[in-house]
């Protein structure tokens, strides 16, 4: 950015037009989120009586945390495990499932990509060209509609409702991050490896203690991005782990809940509450995410 700001002198009409559009867009984002945020602090009765756009009215308790305390005890969805009676999953369990799902799936996915990219970038072996070519072809040539076969595989291999099973199923090495890690390893001089080898270090030791720490900043940035994407992914848990409801899947179900006593303000509070942990995570790692991937391997 320093590069561009140094060069920047004056904005012309073209930039002003799109700058204004961006500002309007940012305002619209805040309007939508602000609508949810302010109404989540309103008493549901106040909202249902038509106070949709105004501030919470004092006669109904003003700003209140009632909706949030309600969802702690009542944000729940019913699951129907096979061969067992239906049961409710509450927010604590959803949160636990979300964190477990996101960590396991992200770790498996990153591990396979790092391993293959490292081998391809740093070693000479017969299958190297084929492995790299397959990665590029898989990314380039779309194969659509394999979901049915995946579902059948998951059922027959008993991988459903098992996060490790789902992670194993989803962690194929071809992907954009394979190329990112490949570029990162390629950029590291091989003399480090050779020096370590002369000193008697084995291949695994070289990988774990020398090469891996050098690309750790890229790996951690990708991990945060993947963690967030998996945390927000409601479709994979919906299809492959319906009995282990995650927060995202729970929110998807909860938005259409017609359960007695659940009002719009509760649903808004549930949605805002699920956004807050990720916003904090993003705020903490913003420089790592934006900086590493901007400066790192994903370049034209």
């Amino acid at each position, binding site marked *: 950015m320093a590069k561009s700001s140094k060069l920047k002198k004056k904005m012309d009409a073209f930039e002003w037009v799109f*700058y204004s559009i961006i500002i309007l867009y940012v305002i619209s984002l805040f309007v939508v989120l602000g*609508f949810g945020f302010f109404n989540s602090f309103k008493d549901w009765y106040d909202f249902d009586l038509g106070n949709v756009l105004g501030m919470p009215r004092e006669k109904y308790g003003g700003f209140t945390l009632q909706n949030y305390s309600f969802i702690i005890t009542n944000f729940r969805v019913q699951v129907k495990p096979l061969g067992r009676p239906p049961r409710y999953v509450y927010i604590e369990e959803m949160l636990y499932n979300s964190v477990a799902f996101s960590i396991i799936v992200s770790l498996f996915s990153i591990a396979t990509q790092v391993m293959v990219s490292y081998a391809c970038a740093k070693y000479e072996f017969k299958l190297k060209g084929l492995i790299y070519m397959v990665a590029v072809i898989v990314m380039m040539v779309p194969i659509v509609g394999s979901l049915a076969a995946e579902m059948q595989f998951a059922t027959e291999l008993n991988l459903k409702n098992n996060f490790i099973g789902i992670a*194993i199923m989803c962690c194929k090495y071809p992907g954009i991050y394979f190329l990112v890690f490949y570029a990162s390893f390629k950029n590291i001089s091989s003399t480090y490896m050779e020096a370590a080898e002369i000193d008697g270090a084995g291949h695994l030791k070289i990988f774990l203690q020398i090469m891996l720490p050098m690309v750790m900043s890229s790996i951690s940035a990708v991990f945060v991005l993947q963690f967030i994407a998996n945390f927000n992914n409601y479709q994979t848990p919906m299809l492959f782990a319906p009995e282990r409801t995650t927060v995202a899947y729970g929110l998807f179900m909860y938005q259409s809940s017609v359960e007695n006593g659940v009002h719009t303000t509760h649903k808004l509070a549930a949605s805002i509450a699920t956004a807050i942990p990720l916003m904090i995570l993003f705020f903490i790692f913003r420089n790592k995410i934006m900086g590493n991937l901007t400066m790192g391997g994903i370049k034209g």
Partner: protein
Amino acid sequence: MKEKEQTFFSKLFTKIKWAMYDLSVKLFGNKKTKIELDANKSRRFKKNLFLFLFLLFPIVQFIIFYIGVNINSILLAFKSFEGGKWVFCGFDNFKEVWDDLFVNGRLNVAVKNSTIQFALSFLVGIPLHVIVAFVMFRGVPGSKFLRFVLFMPNMISSLVFVICFRYLASDALPLITGIENLNILKSSQPSSFYTVLLFGFWLGFAGGLIIYLGAMSSISTDVLEYCELENMSSLRLLWSIIVPLIFPTIITYIVVGMAGFFTSYGQFHSFFGAAGKNSAPPYETLGYVFFVTIARDSATVADYPYAAAGGLMFTMVIAPLTVGIKSLLEKYGPGVD
């Protein structure tokens, strides 16, 4: 003194050692000893063992869950589930999809909606994403904050936006417009398609921001300084310099987005869930139809072959098309003079 002596003797010893080595090479050539050969063999074995163990899991995973799944998908397309058993049914599933597409018109709405969605994302979406990234790259006032906010929709679950927007549209919009019965998200009305389509477009306003910024920041400063000295307008800079230089990245987006014609279901599932079988809602796209065929609560394994056949047919269209368009873009795309 003692140290000095030691250094002197060790230097002398090293010199003698190398002199002996040179002599042996002159006399016998650079033949490796048996010990050296054994050491090499052992090193190679260790390397191969490491690579084998290192790549075993990723390769087996890929063979089972990519190649195996896709082979299974092909087989599934030729089967049907009758009386609790899988039976070979020839091209029946393909015929059913073909009829739905071109004969009985069951998928007419889905094809129309997919075309509109695809056109919007390609003709408006991709250029807009490049322009937004370009404006951010130029370092407009508050660009650091704006980048953070623009990236927010990637961080917060789309469901959060879906829920907030749903109630904004249903409860606040009638109050703002003064139209009491306004319901732009009514699932039985065609307006639901356009509302959710625009919502999805709005949510993806700054799509690819990080990637495009990354590509732009790899452009040489000399080139940008030259443009600055030439007093080049922003539009010219974008069109003549930035776009050609980041064109490989744009091609990647185009290539990845091609399959979206058949697979994208935008935010329709988030808003409306899975519609019932044969219900043909006005917002359905091809991606939505084939997704909910598998994802709806009432779906059974008997529904899988139809989806697999549809997927196979679409792949046969989109795969060569994607590769062709990629090569065409690479050949005839903009270049820098």
